């Protein structure tokens, strides 16, 4: 960790290409201000708007101060990059889904099975986000799909700059699908738009049916909730209807599918949703 600011100087986001084993920086560099590093500009600079300076009269007792009106969204840079990603994905008819959940909800298992069962129908590439390790990207590549691993180091979420790097690396073909497996975390990824078409939140029945009200922001941000590990439902105190009720209280529009990535129960509905989303995304364009 950097001693001057506490930021994760040794925990930078890294992108690993599993073909070459090459690892490089992913996303915006750490220390934008005090280490003299340049930050990722994604090909063009970002309009920060014009700063309006005007002198203020109230600083008489103190040193003369100047108030600069900024009125800028805190996430402006990320949102701009996300918009750029979204436009690129639209132009290439690529459906990008941002899969979010707590750790262990079964995102990778669901992805593995989905990739195997959709093979030959639609090309899918995968962006794997984890704090450390390339285990998940290796599991995905074993299915025959292209995958890049992004290690966020100390970071707890993917951001739009990281997805931009991953898209550069993957060069997904037009008309394909990108599955982005975000870092297992039900809080932070809710805030960061990557440019995806939709966030899909995966909740396993072993986690408790009150997760939607405990972590409302994520369920608010998601377009679809997948209730996974349905095969374990008989062994746990998880009330499906109560969980869906909580999710709809937070987000009345949220879609819900119950399934088991292990047994395959309910997966047809998920595949139908993917096909319908690919169709809807093209029509949006």
């Amino acid at each position, binding site marked *: 960790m950097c001693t001057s600011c506490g930021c994760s100087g040794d925990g930078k986001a890294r992108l690993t290409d599993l073909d070459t084993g090459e690892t490089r920086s992913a996303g915006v560099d750490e220390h934008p201000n005090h280490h003299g590093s340049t930050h990722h500009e994604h090909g063009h600079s970002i309009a920060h708007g014009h700063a309006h300076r005007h002198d203020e009269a109230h600083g008489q007792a103190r040193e003369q101060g100047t108030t600069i009106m900024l*009125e800028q969204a805190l996430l402006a840079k*990320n949102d701009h990059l996300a918009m750029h990603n979204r436009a690129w994905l639209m132009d290439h008819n690529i459906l990008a889904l941002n899969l979010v959940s707590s750790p262990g909800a079964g995102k990778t298992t669901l992805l593995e099975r989905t990739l195997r069962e959709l093979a030959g129908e639609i090309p899918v590439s995968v962006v794997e986000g984890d704090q450390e390790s390339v285990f998940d990207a290796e599991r995905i590549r074993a299915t025959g799909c292209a995958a890049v691993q992004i290690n966020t180091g100390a970071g707890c979420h993917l951001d739009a700059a990281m997805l931009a790097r991953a898209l550069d690396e993957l060069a997904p073909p037009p008309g394909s699908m990108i599955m982005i497996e975000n870092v297992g975390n039900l809080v932070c990824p809710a805030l960061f738009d990557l440019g995806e078409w939709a966030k899909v939140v995966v909740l396993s029945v072993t986690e408790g049916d009150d997760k939607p009200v405990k972590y409302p*922001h994520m369920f608010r941000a998601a377009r679809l909730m997948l209730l996974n590990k349905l095969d374990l439902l008989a062994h746990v105190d998880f009330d499906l209807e109560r969980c869906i009720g909580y999710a709809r209280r937070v987000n009345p529009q949220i879609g819900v599918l119950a399934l088991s990535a292990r047994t395959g129960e309910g997966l047809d509905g998920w595949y139908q949703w993917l096909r319908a989303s690919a169709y809807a995304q093209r029509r949006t364009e």
Partner: protein
Amino acid sequence: MHEFALTRSLIEVCSQQAQGARIRRVTVEVGMLTCVMPEALRFCFEACSAGTALAEAELEIIMTPGRARCRDCGEEVELNELLADCGCGSGNLTEWRGGDTLRIRSMEVV
């Protein structure tokens, strides 16, 4: 901790706009219906501002609530959290508006 990424963005924008001037105060608006905790933002700001143009700056956080209408009693409800109820006890509220802003409003430089 997403507040860390937000703080980095805050410092980057302010440092650019200050053009070398010392920043005495920065005012940020945080909607109460976002998942941003002011305490965490303050903690990150303290940790990250050292050595930057904001090293001596005071962070002012203005919290703004969301609003909705109660479908049962018809009252306008001010929301300090996503799952707040109406004062009448009902949780049956209309879709809320506001309370989701994350914005750097202004800064004072010397």
